[in-house]
C-alpha cells in the first residue's frame, strides 16, 4: 500500500490520500462512468465504506464537508483508452460524521470483495476501503486552525 500523504494546496496537510491500486481503479472507472466523486458513508451493512459515484449523482449540501480532492492521472497508458491526463476526484463526508472523524487521516484503498450500495466499483469484484491513521499533533494544530 503506498500511502501518498502529499500536502494539499497551500501547504496544509491533506486529509485524504489514495493508494496506487485505488488510483488505478479510479482511472479505469472514470473511463466507464465519467468524472467521479466519493461520499464517505456511515451506519450499518456497508457503512464506513467510501461510496464512489458519477460526479453529481449524489446531491451535496450544507450537511456535507469537502475533505479534499484526489489528484490523479489517467494511466497506465498501456490500458485501452488511457490518455495520461490529470483528473480530480473530490471526497465528501457528512458534517455530523466529520465531527467524530476529524482527527484521522484517511487513505482510500481497494480490496477484493462485494460491497452493496450503489458505489460504481462493486461490479468489478472489488470494494473501496478506508484505512486510517491519527494525525500528528503538528498536523492537527494546522488543520484545526483552518477549519
Amino acid at each position, binding site marked *: 500500500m503506498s500511502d501518498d500523504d502529499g500536502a494539499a494546496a497551500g501547504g496544509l496537510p491533506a486529509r485524504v490520500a489514495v493508494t496506487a491500486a485505488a488510483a488505478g481503479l479510479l482511472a479505469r472507472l472514470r473511463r466507464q462512468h465519467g468524472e467521479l466523486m466519493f461520499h464517505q458513508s456511515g451506519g450499518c451493512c456497508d457503512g464506513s465504506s467510501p461510496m464512489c459515484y458519477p460526479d453529481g449523482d449524489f446531491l451535496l449540501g450544507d450537511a456535507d464537508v469537502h475533505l479534499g480532492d484526489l489528484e490523479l492521472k489517467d494511466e497506465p497508458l498501456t490500458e485501452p483508452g488511457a490518455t495520461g491526463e490529470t483528473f480530480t476526484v473530490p471526497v465528501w463526508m457528512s458534517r455530523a460524521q466529520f465531527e467524530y472523524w476529524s482527527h484521522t487521516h484517511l487513505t482510500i484503498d481497494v480490496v477484493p470483495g*462485494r460491497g452493496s450500495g450503489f458505489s460504481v466499483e462493486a461490479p468489478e469484484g472489488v470494494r473501496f476501503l478506508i484505512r486510517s491513521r491519527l494525525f500528528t499533533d503538528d498536523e492537527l494544530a494546522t488543520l484545526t486552525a483552518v477549519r
Partner: protein
Amino acid sequence: MTVYAAPGQPGAIAEYRARYDHWIGGEYVPPANGQYFENPSPVTGQTFTEVARGTAADIERALDAAEGAATAWGKTTVTERANILNKIADRMEANLEKIAVAESWENGKPVRETLAADIPLAIDHFRYFAGAIRAQEGSISEIDEDTIAYHFHEPLGVVGQIIPWNFPILMATWKLAPALAAGNAVVLKPAEQTPASILFLLDIVGDLLPPGVLNVVNGFGVEAGKPLASSPRIRKIAFTGETTTGRLIMQYASQNIIPVTLELGGKSPNIFFSDVADQRDDYYDKALEGFTMFALNQGEVCTCPSRALIQADIYDQFLGDALERTKAVTQGNPLDTDTMIGAQASNDQLEKILSYIDIGKAEGAKVLTGGQRAELDGDLAGGYYVTPTVFEGKNSMRIFQEEIFGPVVSVTEFADFDDAMKIANDTLYGLGAGVWSRQGATAYRAGRTIEAGRVWTNCYHAYPAAAAFGGYKGSGVGRENHKMMLDHYQQTKNLLVSYSGQKLGFF
C-alpha cells in the same frame, strides 16, 4: 451436536441450484444481458452458485410483471391474502431445517441461529401480518348528523424493496410480509453478498403467490438497485443499509415524490448499572450473556451492542467476568450446531473489520481479548473469520462511533446515571440500546432518556413481531416489525359523504 453436510456435499439436506435467474412473473427469467455473477460461501470462500446480474432492463421487466399483478392482488380480500401468508409460514415451517442450512451456507452465520432465530422469526412474521391485516379496520368520523368521513385502507400499488445481507431471509420477510398483507406487488432486490437465500426460499413457497405479486431481481446496486430506487413506476421504496445510500434513495424518492422507509444502522450502547452485580445469580448470568450478544451473528446486526458502558464501581469485576464469557465463545464451522460464531459475510467485510481494529489500536484503545483474524483449518481456511474482540477505550474514539459490523465491542465506564445517559446519547445514531438494572425505576428512566427506537431492558437482541423496531436520529425512518408498518404500505382513501338533501346556500 450435529454437523450438517454443506450444500453440494453428500448427505446435504439443502441443495442450491447451479445457477439462479431472476424471479419475474412467477417464473425464472434469464437476465436481459445474459450475465451472471459468482456467489461464494463465506464459510470457505468458494463459489457455490451463480446468480443473474440484473440491469435496468430486468427491473423494467419485473415492474411490468408487478404492474400486471398489482390491481388484482390489491382487490383480493384480506382473508385470501392472510391465508396465503399463513400458507407461506406453514410451508417454511415444514422446511425449516433445510432453509436454515441454506441460509447459513450463504451468509456464514451459525446454523444454531438460523434454526432457532432467523427462520422461526420469519415464519412468525408472516403469521403476525396475516393476523394484523385481518384485524385491521378502517374508520369513520361523524362530521355532523348528515356528513360522514369514511377512511379506507388501500394498497400503494407497486413497491420497491432493497434487502441487506446480514439476515437475508428475515430482513426480506420484515419488508415483504406487511407489503403483501396490505395488497401491494413487490419488486425486491436482495443484497449482492446474499442473492440466493431468498430464491432458495421461493423455490419452496413461490407457487403460493399469484404470478407477478413478488418479483426478485438480483444484481449490483449501481446496475439494478439504482434503476429500481429511482424508477417513477414504484409508489414506495424501502431500504436497509448505510447512510450515504440511504440519502441517495431519499434523493431519488424526492424526484418521484414517493415515501421511503429506511433502516440505517446504529452504534448501540449496552448499559450495566452497579446493581447488576449485587448477587451472583441467574440475573447476573443473564447480564453477562447480554454483554456477549455483540458476537451474535458475528456482530453483523444493525443493533449490535457494540458499546458496553459499565458503572465504575463494578467495572473491573463485571468486565473480568464478561471477558471470560467472551473467551468461551466457540468459533468454527457454521454448519456445526455447537458453533456460536461463524464467518463474516464477505471478504470486504472482513477487511473493514480488521481496518477498524487497526484504528482502534492506533487511537490507544486496549485490546482485552481477540483483535485479529481467526485462522481456521481445512476447508474453513479460505473463509472470513474474526475472533470476538473486546476493546477498552473512550467514547470519542472512532471504534465507539462507527458501526464496525463485526464481533467487536468497545467498553468504557461511567460514573453515575447522568454520565451514562450522556455517553449513551453521544452518537449519530439511535436504533437500539440495552439497559441492565435490578431497579425498575432506574431501568425505566434510562430507557426513556436514551434517544433510540428500541431499548432492550434486561434483555437484548430479541426481535419478536409486535415490538416496533426503527431508528431515532441518523438511524432511519419508519418502524418495522409491528402492525404500524402497514401504514407505510397503504394509502388512506377518504370518502367525505353528505346525506343531506339541502344546499349549503352559498350559490
